[in-house]
């Protein structure tokens, strides 16, 4: 798998008069799980959409790197998978039909698809629900199906927008275990979340507050450095630091 990483430099984005991002610089290194942590309206979704090429920055720059060499977004894109925050699957299509649709979009050959989908159904334990329609899946299963669609093509970079939002604690733990299993293969994973307890599950965290980057780094080191017991504390003290 090619090593994918993304850097941004003083990234800005406005929606009319609203400044969603006020000059943020991220360093998303290959092979790690990066967390975008922040409350609603912090700019997490905007950041991920910018990274996925779904929005254009107002100012600042994005640098996509493949195997140590800067590459264009067009070259980077085929290895990129994105799972939006809002429901974006088709309620009237079954689990199997979703996988087949994404197989065709990514032009996977029959053998690869068979192996990969069996593997994904196994680890997500959705095998029994192949024929169930997405509209009838529980919240956790729905998110897992979304993740399967994103992982089907074995991406080198995976962007997940609040994948555990509204999911019960046990499903959330399972979801993270799925992510860990993937990151072992050198995949760049960027996950946004509003759950502070999930920050510690990431290799690197980026704390976002109202469009600004409050702090970034390895979670435990960050807590030590700020003398904080939890990430909530860093957010509450945010302005003072």
């Amino acid at each position, binding site marked *: 798998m090619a090593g994918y990483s993304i850097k941004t430099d003083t990234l800005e984005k406005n929606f009319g008069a609203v400044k969603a991002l006020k000059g943020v610089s991220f360093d998303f290194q290959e092979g790690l799980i990066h967390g975008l942590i922040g409350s609603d309206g912090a700019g997490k979704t905007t950041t991920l959409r910018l990274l996925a090429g779904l929005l254009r920055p107002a100012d600042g720059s994005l640098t996509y790197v493949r195997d140590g060499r800067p590459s264009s977004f067009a070259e980077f894109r*085929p290895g990129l998978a994105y799972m939006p925050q*809002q*429901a974006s699957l*088709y*309620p009237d299509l079954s689990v199997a039909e979703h996988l087949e*649709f994404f197989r065709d*979009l990514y032009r996977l050959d029959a053998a690869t698809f068979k192996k990969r989908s069996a593997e994904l159904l196994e680890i997500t334990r959705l095998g029994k629900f192949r024929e169930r329609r997405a509209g009838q899946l529980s919240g956790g299963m729905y998110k897992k199906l979304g993740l399967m669609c994103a992982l089907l093509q074995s991406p080198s970079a995976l962007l997940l927008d609040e994948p555990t939002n509204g999911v019960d604690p046990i499903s959330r733990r399972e979801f993270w275990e799925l992510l860990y299993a993937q990151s072992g293969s050198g995949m760049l994973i960027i996950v946004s979340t509003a759950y502070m307890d999930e920050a510690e599950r990431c290799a690197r965290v980026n704390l976002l507050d109202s469009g600004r980057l409050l702090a970034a780094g390895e979670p435990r080191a960050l807590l030590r450095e700020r003398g904080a017991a939890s990430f909530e504390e860093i957010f509450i003290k945010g302005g003072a630091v």
Partner: protein
Amino acid sequence: MTGFDLHRAAAVARKEVMHILRDPFTLALVLGLPVVLVVFFGFAIDFDVKNLALGVYDRDNTRHSRQLVSVFESSGYFLPGAVDSPAAAARGLDSGRYSAALLVEPGFGRGLGGGGRARVQFIVDGTDNSKAQAVLGYLPGLTGAALRKFGAAVPADPVPLKTRFMYNPELNSRWFVIPGLAVIIIGLLSILMTALTVAREWENGSMELLLSTPLRPAEIIAGKIAPYVGLILAGVFFVNLVARFGFGVPFRGSHLLFLGGTVLFALASLSQGIVISVVTRQQQLAMQLSMISGLLPSLLLSGFIFPVESMPVFFRYFTMILSPRWFMEIARGVTIRGAGAADLALPLAALAALCALLLAAAFKKFKTDLEP
């Protein structure tokens, strides 16, 4: 990267077929609307004026006057009812009970026999001018028939004018209306269908996911349009079947030419639907816009009921940018007149140009990002 991948377009089309088959509303609309329209325009709406209430005041009451009334009655256009004074006939017209009145003056029979002038008055309610025009159109035929019945010498015309109606000798209005129904069905359905399906992807949130995949706009558009072209062709085929075997409307021209025109018109309308949904991104709004931009032009400005030639100058030129008007000429020309491609060169060229324009607009307007 920017190339068009047929496999991906086919995947979108297959998915669309699943949506159609699983959505009872879409299916009912696509299959039901042609049936409703054919029944509506084929049976209920008849532009031929028949069974008009006719008030008859026969002051002459001779053999000849009774024969005159019987000619009106047996024509099938009128239902005569006797009134006992001209004032009663006038009141009947006022109240809307009669659409026309026939007043036979005393001395009518004698006049025909050669003793003076035979005088008849015919009054028509002009409120509904299309009805009045039709009634006036019947008169020469009826008076001619009456004169022959009386055995009177029909006065020789100074300029002998013989009228013959080509293609539709009986001027059967169903021959005129039913081929035009294809225009209404395609015009309305296809715009609505694509407008809803793309807007649904936006509302559903799935567009965000689709745009993050290698899927290109051209593949989405092609995949969205293709299943509906099939559906539309099925609808048009059904209408033609009913027209031919249910209403005896002839099909004189080339089926291939008709098919070609239908595909062009369907593509133009489907593209229009895509433009609408890309701009609105909401099903509700897309539905309203496609109703207005789909139904109104095909119903009112295509020549379906009101001839384009008799529209005010502005509208006559305005209809030129509306694809229904051109397809109407093709549909009627091919079915009723048996016109060939050379005869229909102008409408075909115009339709092809509009189709290319709308397709280009759909591609251009289609957004590849989530920018508002």
